[in-house]
């Protein structure tokens, strides 16, 4: 196929390209010498991450696994890694960016003389992309890939995204969709008059607050991660914290899963530990919901949801994480276990529709009732 190598390459592109080429040349040299070509890929498991007490982020350890071609269990993944590397090389050459799903289709085909596909589904290609990221120490966006965007934003902030200036105070009911890639070369902060950032777990809660014009009254940026935060949302949050020097408050459900969403924003995740440096915001504040809000706000019984066995197991696991070793966190997690129930942020509507906007959040902010 005719390749258009016309696209202008940035320095960053040139560097990524040379990393990919180095990987390929290394394999070719190894096999040329009659040895088993291998890729060194750092292990992305709990056993190979460590909590850096000083930086207060989760970092990937040095343990790596050698992925060999002449090994029945690894040959397929070895091949897939190179298919993705080659696909990324083409994207860089052509100056295009595709989603990880599109990359799956770019590299998927049937092997000659068999019914076997290079990739059977996206669940196979996504981890390979992450392997390549750690394997050559390149970021996803440097590979010209992005994940599906997730997360909404509205508030007292003006940004410039790929040349378009956007006033985030004029986004109507829908808000601004946070792009998957939020790197400074494409996304720039133009003007900021917000005093803090409120990030909520659920889109419905964000919608409640947006309809109530919370961000206008409190002069802030209102964001939702729509569940577990995607890379774009995390990167944006980190940039706002560092570049705009704004405090960040997080509001999640009162259960171990909600707390883990906060935890990932704060010190990074196990799977993307190699990205923690760019994504974790160690001083992000846990606004709620706290196990102790039940009494503080005299919540009705209707707000309770009984803890499942799974919830308790997960809570115990969290208590063991080094970054939750602090007394206040132990107390918070133990509080939920002792309550025997969990609460969704939505349960604040048992009081009244705008209780959350008018009383819960303002009171928590006023009382500085948060954990950090």
């Amino acid at each position, binding site marked *: 196929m005719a390749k258009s190598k016309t696209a202008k390459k940035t320095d960053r592109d040139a560097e990524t390209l040379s990393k*990919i*080429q180095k*990987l*390929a*040349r290394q*394999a*070719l040299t190894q*096999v*040329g010498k*009659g*040895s*088993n070509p291998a890729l060194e890929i750092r292990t992305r498991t709990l056993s190979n991450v460590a909590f850096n007490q000083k930086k207060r982020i989760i970092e990937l350890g040095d343990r790596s696994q050698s992925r060999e*071609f*002449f*090994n*029945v*269990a690894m*040959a*397929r993944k*070895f*091949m897939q890694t*190179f*298919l993705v*590397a*080659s696909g990324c*090389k*083409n994207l860089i050459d052509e100056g295009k960016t595709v989603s990880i799903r599109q990359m799956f289709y770019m590299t998927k085909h049937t*092997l*000659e*003389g*068999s019914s*076997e596909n*290079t990739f059977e589904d996206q669940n196979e290609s996504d981890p390979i992309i992450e392997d390549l990221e750690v394997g050559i120490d390149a970021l996803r966006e440097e590979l010209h890939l992005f994940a599906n965007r997730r997360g909404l934003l509205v508030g007292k902030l003006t940004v410039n995204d790929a040349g378009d200036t956007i006033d985030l105070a004029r986004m109507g009911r829908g808000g601004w969709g946070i792009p998957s890639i939020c790197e400074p070369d494409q996304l720039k902060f133009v003007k900021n008059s917000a005093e803090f950032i409120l990030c909520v777990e659920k889109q419905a809660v964000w919608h409640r607050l947006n309809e109530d014009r919370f961000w206008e009254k409190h002069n802030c940026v209102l964001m939702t991660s729509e569940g577990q935060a995607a890379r774009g949302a995390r990167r944006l949050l980190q940039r706002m914290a560092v570049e705009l020097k704004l405090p960040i408050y997080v509001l999640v459900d009162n259960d171990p899963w909600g707390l883990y969403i906060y935890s990932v924003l704060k010190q990074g995740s196990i799977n993307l530990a190699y990205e923690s440096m760019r994504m974790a915001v160690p001083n992000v504040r846990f606004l709620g919901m706290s196990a102790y809000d039940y009494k503080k706000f005299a919540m009705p019984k209707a707000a309770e949801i009984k803890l499942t066995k799974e919830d308790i197991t997960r809570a115990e696991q969290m208590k063991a994480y080094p970054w939750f070793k602090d007394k206040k966190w132990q107390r918070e997690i133990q509080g939920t276990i002792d309550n025997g129930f969990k609460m969704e942020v939505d349960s604040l509507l048992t009081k009244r529709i705008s209780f959350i906007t008018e009383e819960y959040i303002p009171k928590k902010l006023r009382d500085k009732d948060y954990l950090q």
Partner: protein
Amino acid sequence: MSSSKTDSEPLSMPPEPKRRATAESMASRQREISVSEFFTKNRHLLGFDNPAKALLTTVKEAVDNSLDACEEAGILPDLLVEIREVAGPTSAKVGKLKEADAGPGGGPSRFRVIVQDNGPGIVKPQIPKIFAKLLYGSKFHRLKQSRGQQGIGISAAGLYGQLTTGKPVVITSKTGKGRPAFQIHLRIDTKRNQPDIVQEDTVEWDPEHGTRVEIELVAAYRGGRTGVQEYLEQTVVANPHLALTYVSPKGERTEFPRVTSELPREAQEIKPHPHGVELGMLHAMLADSPDKSVKQALVDDFSRISPAVAASICQMAKVNPKTPADRINGEDLERLHRALGQVKVMAPPATAVVPIGEALLVEGLKRRFPRAEFYASTTRPPSVYRGNPFVVEAGLAFGGDLPLDELAEIMRFANRVPLQYQPKACAISEAVYQTNWRGYELQQSKGSLPQAPMAIAVHLASVWVPFTSEAKEAVAQYDELLREMKLAVQECGRKLAAHLRARANADREMKRRGLFERYIPEVAGAISEILGLEKKQVEKPFYNALPTFAGTSDEPGDGNGGAGPAGSPAPASKARPKDAPPPPQAGVARRSPKPRGEQMTLLE
């Protein structure tokens, strides 16, 4: 109705007395019973109990005799076996045999069995005695490995033919070039156990020497495990030096050319060994030496008894060594017998036993199973059973066109003669059953034969084969024999297992190789794209490295379980080509023959 009635019918015996007889009246009926009469009453003991078996036994006795004669004369045997169906009424007597005995294919009919060899021939005066006198032969009176043992076989076959068809046996024999060929028609006088020459001619006969036996009998031709065809095919396996032509009743001609021109080494005749002699035999031996002292008789008539050993035997038996041999009787004889069984002597010479040999047994198996995938064989070192030296050997053919999903086939041989009846009673079958074939990568239900495309041959060579009955159908299960048989079968099993494991490894290697071969174009394509190289240029080093990695087993943690089961064979054993049998000498090294207790000497 009863079988005994059927058996007695051919004899015109007087009716059973209805009253108690007096001693005098009994004495009037007491007379010598001729062996021929004995035979007609007890033919089931000799293998003539039904028409199908009678045919097999007739062929078998004639072939055994021919092979023994050829080998003794040092002639490579060329045999013709022909069975012709002939017109003529079947004997009423045999016709009354139960239908079931006749087997499939309807009732019995008349057959003419012709067995011709290129042996040394028989001198004319001996012909009638050999073929028409029961218990006449050269083999009964000596201890030497041979096919026939009692000298009853061929004359019994002739007698059976005579009884069922009334036809005499026709013998043609010639002892050398330029000598006349005699053709003699013989009957047997059943009362006197004497041959009766019906007709005698000198005829023109092309062969330089040899013997041709023709017997007409009422019989049934049957296929399958107990058939004549099976007998001949198995004979061909155990006798690689035999060239055989077989013409079936349908006129089909099958040729089995010989696969070796090496005659089996001549078995040496040995004297009885003190540990194996029976009391009656000892008595007869001593009685036959009237001019000797006991001591001298022992030294002369037994193997491994030196004058010193004889003296100590006499001492143990509390018998004066100078007593004339024929005067030893009663308690003296019993003590002497006991002393003979206890005295420490060397084992009998192993030269008396001639095995087929590992290489030739494989050649023999190939004659019957030319398209098997794997052959193995084992010849055990000589061992001793009750003073009789013996050697057990086993061979197997596996895979190829042998039937899958069936139980393995056992071929049993005693002194190269196939045993076709009574497999369940035989030590050979027992040895195969008792072997744990699952340990050799085969499927086997408990107490059953392995289920595999496999034929197993076990051969017992001995100067004296302990059969379970006079019909010589099954080998008695004596511990010493069973142990050696199991060891032989197990050794073949181990060779097979090594082959099967090597094959499984090769399969795994093919699979691994296939996997890598599938991915190489992809990896090479990607790398060439990244580096801007020609794909072929990148593929080449990968294909070059492939052989190195396709064979080796993955390291642990491979997850695929590529590693073979524990104890997979060393790479050296993989190298053996699939079709070639294991080199007999290079195979499992022969263990030095050290049978427990008794020490064996190998004179070769």
